[in-house]
């Protein structure tokens, strides 16, 4: 069953077609990887889904509702939450307060909010840093915090924009396990990633973008051997 469906989605910046007539479907409980060379339009797709940008044309459906014209906070209420490629923590807040802001999306009772916040911090292994100010966190912890805040909004659909970038191998493994656990809890995940190891081991399906268009789509092994994809990434010289 398709939860998210993009229909002929188009968005240009001046003369540049960032996303051109993109059709894309994500099914419930799936982990889909979105890859492509720099400037392929991956983050623009995220910005369009999360309503940070308005599409020029085309429509977006989530759980059969047309969400094309909603505002970012309404998208979040619907159950879609995004993280940012360049993490945007509330720098002067403690880790706990950062997560608390997210939990206001669904919860009202003070005690409930407190419990949920601690539960999420525990899940991500940030609980002993709960009183640290966000600006004093390492990049690895900031990425985790970004995810923690998103989880606090109780989403059913996560848009993860390069949550692995800048992490060391151990932290990457932690993050992979976290994402797999989220999937087992029934969450649907669309992720942008550059690290091939991560994308190949996590995704059930990969969609490759190039110049705003869908270049290829398929299982990780199909994509790995797809000639178009190799060409797009490495140039024509290697195509032989």
């Amino acid at each position, binding site marked *: 069953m398709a939860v998210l469906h993009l229909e002929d989605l188009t968005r240009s910046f001046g003369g540049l077609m960032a996303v051109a007539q993109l059709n894309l479907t994500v099914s419930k409980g799936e982990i889909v990887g979105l890859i492509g060379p720099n400037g392929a339009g991956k983050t623009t797709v995220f910005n369009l889904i*999360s309503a*940070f940008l308005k599409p020029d044309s085309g429509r977006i459906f989530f759980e059969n509702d047309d969400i094309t014209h909603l*505002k*970012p*906070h309404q998208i*979040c*209420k619907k159950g879609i*939450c*995004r*993280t*940012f490629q360049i993490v*945007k*923590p*509330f*720098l*002067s*807040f403690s880790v706990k*307060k950062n997560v*608390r*802001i*997210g939990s*206001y*999306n669904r919860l009202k009772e003070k005690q409930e909010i407190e419990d949920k916040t601690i539960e999420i911090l525990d899940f991500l292994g940030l609980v002993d840093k709960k009183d640290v100010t966000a600006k004093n966190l390492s990049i690895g912890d900031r990425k985790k915090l970004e995810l923690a*805040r*998103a989880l*606090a*909004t109780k989403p059913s659909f996560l848009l993860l924009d390069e949550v692995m970038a800048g992490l060391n191998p151990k932290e990457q493994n932690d993050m992979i396990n976290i994402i797999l656990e989220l999937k087992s809890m029934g969450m649907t995940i669309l992720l942008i990633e550059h690290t091939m190891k991560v994308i190949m081991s996590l995704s059930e399906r990969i969609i490759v973008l190039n110049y705003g268009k869908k270049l290829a789509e398929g299982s990780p092994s199909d994509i790995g051997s797809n000639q178009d994809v190799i060409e797009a990434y490495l140039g024509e010289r290697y195509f032989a």
Partner: protein
Amino acid sequence: MNNRLVIAAILFIFVVIAPFLNDYFLHVLIMMFLYSYLGTSWNILGGYTGQFSFGHTAYFGIGAYVSTILLFNWKISPWIGMICGAFLGLIFGLFIGFLCFRYGLRGPYFALATLAFAEMLRIGALNLEITGKAMGILIPLEGDSFWLFQFTSKLPYYYIILCMTTGIVLINYIISNAKLGDCFEAIREDPDSAMALGIDTFKYKMIAIALSSFFTTMGGTFYAQYMFYIDPEICFGVHNSIEIFLRPILGGLGTVMGPTLGAFLLAPVSEVTRNFLGSYSGVYLMIYGILFIMVIIFFPRGIVGLLSSIPKEKVKNLFVKT
């Protein structure tokens, strides 16, 4: 708990000593609390929500003129005028907020837009018959009565402004410990993140400007009734806007006690310089300027930030209640 006791004790001292003070000291304290009140009102929008209003005197002026016009022309009690003014100020605030926030004006652009609105009111007041044009309005003395908000002694004014300031500080305290305050601060820290986490940034900015304008307007009415004279420059001039946000910046933006601490610091400085350097008019403004520059360079988080960097737990807990 200790912090509250200390603040309650200081408040108690201010309540008790007042009858023993002469008129001059009472005047200094009244102005100190008035600007602490205005600064704390400004702090809701400028400090917590991070929407730096450069034209807050617009609301102050609305409060002063509305109650005065009602009293002058129709003998309506300034207390009623204060409420009418407050709602008019709130509507004006929502109007400015709607225009600015709808189109996503941020930072300096919002500051300039608010400045422009205050200037529009100033020019309006300079040219309209009902506001007395450049002459301003001299409020007629009707007698010593609470209902008319007119007293021959300064003491009642002192207690009124002390109550108003205590009230607004309490309101700031309640906001800062509630979801509302968290949402305001999230918008200040990172509006994009706030949106992504489901906060309706437009709605919360509108709430902030509504609260802030409502309370600032009430301060304007107090000023008019205390001074008995208002004119367009006093009420809508840029100078007053600066006076309003100077104290929160000195004391610490987005903190409960910051604006009040700023006022406590600035009142003696400006009085001492005005008295001792009175023959050089304007020198006190230069001292303001120097103080302001020093604070921005060395203590960008204000007095509260400075105090909270002192590692003594008690001092820290006393003021940092964000």
